[in-house]
């Protein structure tokens, strides 16, 4: 499936031929049955009307009117005397076509209105859901960026103090004669600053732990589809085609919905970005899910700029980034989320262009 085209509302757009066939088949069947039973014309007229009502519920304006007329012709030809001729001899010959056509038109018109309002409602619901999801994403990214900036500032202070004190210490030792007491004062400060830095890291860890996870049984395919829906615009605007090959009947996994969305979103956005940064490769992103002995394996393969073999582990380090605008937190956080779920996340350079990211999740039992 290529995203951007969704199979929404197929029921409303039957191919025209199928509509005709259905109508004619229903009429033929009714005509044959009634003719064999030698039903009287009024009964048949009412039965035709029922068929027209039922058909009109499902098909559109013009074919409905035609089928109503055909029904009238059948009625006149097979069931009203004189048989096997067409002619306006009885009251029924005038009333039936008008009643059939009017019924068909009124019902198709009502149905089209009902369909339109349902569709409108669905669109509105989807738009709402989408904007909510986007909001959640933006908030998450904002919080991440702010968090990273404040961590960077907090850690940078004791670090620069360590650098200053280290320089001072060296200068005291290098002076002639060496000023050992001043040097050791500076060294003591270094120890203090180092402890302070590790205090800060402890505090941040405690802070991050507070965001509790809620693990439930969930369908990873659904999570993937939600994320792909979310980035559909982004991918389309960058001319990247997202291919999904989601294994049917996968076991449910144990996981936090928001966190796993974050992981998939991160991998998919990374893939799209990697593809965008090259111009001569095919612009495809493949997402696969399949069953494994202990759970589920998800693969995100891009045809983008690719990775060196030596970078394959480095990219999971915090603050390591190959992007000019990146914070280098995405993959580090994704990996820690998966490890917290008892799963794993790793990267493999493709034989061709691009990189493949894979992660595993445990089965819910």
């Amino acid at each position, binding site marked *: 499936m290529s995203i951007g085209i969704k199979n929404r509302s197929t029921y409303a757009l039957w191919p025209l031929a199928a509509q005709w066939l259905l109508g004619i088949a229903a009429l033929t069947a009714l005509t044959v049955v009634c003719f064999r039973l030698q039903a009287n014309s009024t009964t048949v007229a009412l039965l035709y009307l029922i068929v027209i009502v039922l058909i009109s519920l499902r098909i559109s304006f013009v074919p409905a009117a035609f089928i109503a007329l055909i029904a009238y012709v059948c009625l006149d030809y097979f069931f009203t005397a004189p048989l096997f001729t067409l002619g306006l001899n009885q009251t029924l010959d005038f009333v039936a076509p008008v009643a059939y056509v009017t019924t068909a038109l009124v019902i198709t018109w009502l149905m089209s209105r009902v369909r339109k309002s349902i569709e409108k409602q669905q669109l509105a619901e989807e738009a709402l859901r989408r904007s909510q999801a986007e909001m959640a994403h933006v908030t998450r990214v904002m919080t991440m960026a702010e968090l990273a900036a404040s961590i960077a500032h907090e850690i940078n202070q004791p670090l*620069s103090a360590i650098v*200053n004190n280290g*320089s*001072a210490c060296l200068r005291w030792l290098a002076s002639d004669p060496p000023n050992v007491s001043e040097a050791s004062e*500076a060294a003591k400060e270094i120890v203090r*600053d180092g402890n302070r830095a590790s205090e800060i890291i402890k505090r941040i860890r405690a802070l991050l732990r507070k965001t509790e996870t809620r693990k439930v049984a969930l369908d990873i395919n659904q999570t993937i589809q939600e994320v792909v829906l979310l980035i559909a615009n982004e991918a389309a605007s960058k001319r990247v085609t997202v291919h999904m090959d989601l294994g049917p009947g996968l076991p449910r996994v144990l996981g936090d919905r928001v966190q796993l969305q974050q992981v998939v979103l991160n991998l998919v956005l990374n893939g799209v970005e990697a593809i965008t940064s090259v111009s001569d490769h095919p612009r495809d992103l493949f997402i696969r899910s399949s069953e494994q002995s202990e759970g589920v394996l998800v693969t995100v393969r891009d045809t983008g700029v690719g990775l060196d073999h030596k970078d394959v582990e480095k990219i999971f380090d915090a603050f390591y980034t190959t992007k000019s605008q990146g914070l280098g937190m995405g993959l580090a956080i994704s990996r820690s989320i998966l490890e917290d779920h008892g799963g794993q996340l790793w990267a493999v350079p493709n034989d061709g262009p691009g990189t493949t990211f894979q992660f595993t999740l445990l089965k819910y039992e």
Partner: protein
Amino acid sequence: MSKKILPDSSALVFVVDDDDSVRKSLRNLIRSAHLQVETFASAQEFLAAPRVDVPSCLVLDVRMPGLNGLELQKRLAEIEIDIPIVFITAHGDVPTSVRAMKAGAAEFLIKPFKDGDLLEAIDQAIERDRLARQQKAQLTDLRSRYESLTPRERQVMDLVVSGLLNKQIAFELGTSEVTIKVHRGQVMTKMRASSLADLVRMSEKLSMSTTRNP
């Protein structure tokens, strides 16, 4: 404003940074370069401290609670305290550094920096301040000498440096050449000018400073 007159070699470095450990480390580093240093935890503290009349510079953190670095720079300009500023910051964003440099900062360093970079910036800033101070002191001295002249002596001095002879000046002021000679001698002594050329130079400096700071 209390003035401590210290020998010229005793330069003083002021440090304003709200972070305890950074402040202490800067004190250590600057002391290790055999410079005197005074530290302050906020801009307000620095503003409240007595001024000292020695070559000095200010090492100033950009991001601080209360008055931040750039605001302190502006405040100092407003109250006409002319001290070279070396900015230090953890986030070297371009707009901030451009603003700081445009407002006359001596240097803009990003933490953590090399000790050499900071100490060199401090040295240059102090040298700049030392020169500015020398020029300012010379000018103040010159002004007080000029102010010790009588109104008639100032008239004579202005005409002398404009190139008139004693005779012409006497005619101009409606007096005798001998009187002008006496006035002229007084001017040379009071201004401590060794020659006419010297006096002309002094006059130029005075008029330049008056047109620059009216």
